[in-house]
């Protein structure tokens, strides 16, 4: 460490005037430690500057001191507010957030409920219509079963009703069961009637024609008719729509012996 060299750098004077940076400070302090007499130089320079400042003192404006002290107060107050535990206001924040969340959830749930309710209603009514269809099918099945059983029944007699003219192809078939007292007829081959006419079937009891039923003009249908126990023959006539009290004998189309 060269004292002469160091003094030539001018660093000592700059250090004394407060013009040096941290790096330069450390450098100077190394030399001050090595050459303690240099401290006197530093002190002397600083004292000269202090004296110069004191001798050139100027009274500042009157409100300066109070400005300084009140600014210190406000800085201290701000610091106090910042470090105080923000529990209440942060609690309020949480409360607000929770309330908003709760409210939003409630609204969402309400809409979800309404939607589910509508879906449920849909399903319910669909189910109802399915059930009704099911009932109908069940009933159809049951009646088909009954019919099938009826036809298979050994006591069911098959009666062919044919035209009076041997050349006629007209035919109807009746199913006659005395034990269950049930009868069914099928217009297997009868002409289609105009809208104002209908087929009617009669049973001949002691030479009296008794009405056994008005028939629907449908060849596929097996139609139930009245079971007339004492009937000797079955006869189908063409009558005006709605049927007649007594048969129009001239319109007899098919007949058969029971």
């Amino acid at each position, binding site marked *: 460490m060269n004292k002469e060299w160091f003094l030539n750098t001018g660093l*000592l004077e*700059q250090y004394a*005037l407060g013009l040096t940076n941290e790096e330069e400070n450390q450098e100077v302090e190394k030399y001050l430690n090595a050459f303690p007499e240099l401290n006197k130089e530093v002190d002397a320079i600083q004292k000269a500057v202090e004296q110069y400042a004191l001798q050139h003192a100027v009274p500042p404006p009157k409100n300066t001191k109070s400005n300084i002290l009140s600014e210190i107060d406000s800085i201290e107050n701000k610091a106090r507010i910042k470090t105080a535990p923000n529990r209440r206001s942060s609690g309020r924040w949480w409360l607000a957030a929770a309330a908003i969340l709760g409210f939003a959830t409630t609204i969402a749930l309400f809409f979800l409920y309404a939607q589910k309710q509508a879906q449920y209603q849909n399903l319910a009514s669909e189910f109802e219509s399915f059930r009704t269809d099911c009932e109908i099918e069940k009933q159809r099945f049951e009646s088909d079963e009954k019919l099938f059983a009826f036809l298979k029944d050994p006591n069911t007699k098959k009666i062919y009703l044919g035209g009076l003219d041997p050349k006629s192809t007209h035919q109807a078939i009746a199913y006659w069961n005395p034990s269950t007292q049930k009868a069914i007829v099928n217009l297997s081959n009868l002409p289609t009637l105009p809208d104002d006419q209908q087929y009617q079937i009669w049973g001949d009891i002691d030479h009296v024609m008794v009405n056994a039923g008005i028939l629907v003009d449908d060849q596929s249908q097996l139609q139930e008719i009245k079971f007339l126990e004492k009937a000797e023959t079955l006869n189908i006539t063409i009558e005006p729509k709605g049927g007649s009290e007594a048969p129009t004998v001239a319109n007899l189309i098919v007949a058969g012996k029971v």
Partner: protein
Amino acid sequence: MKTRPDQIIKLLAQKDKRAISILYDQYGPALYGIILKIVKKEAIAQDVLQDSFIKIWKNGPMYNSQKGTLFTWMLNIARNTAIDKTRSKHYRVNDFIEEVSHEHGNSLEWSFAPKPEHIGLKKIINNLDEKYRLIIELIYFRGLSQQEVHEQLNIPLGTVKSRLRIGLRELRKVFDIQNIPLIVFIFFS
């Protein structure tokens, strides 16, 4: 009851407002004088003085007596704050250097000029060679670095450094002389 220096330092370390009150009374005007020589305008100088004391209060706990006296520490804060202010307000430093280096008349406003009432002092400082006054003016009151002075005045860096040294030594002589009683001084001037 006057507060002892070590007591003031203690209060300052605790960021006690009372320390600032005492230091303002004691050194406020001295700091204000230096600041005024740097920024020139009273309104700006007041701002700088206030800012300086706030910094002194904030950094009080960091003051280390090994680095120098409290007053010097405060002076440095005040000076740095003032220099920063001149930089931020776009002082045309270059123009100033031209004026300062070429003018020889008394009409020029030197920051480093002595108070009129200190006639004896003025004599001594005026005797201080202009070249030393210039260096001290530029480096201390204008905040230029030695490098900047070298570049702008076109004088060798080594010359800048030696002039600062000698100038400060001469300045010290001024204040060493001042330790002699004033009557004797006037008598001899």
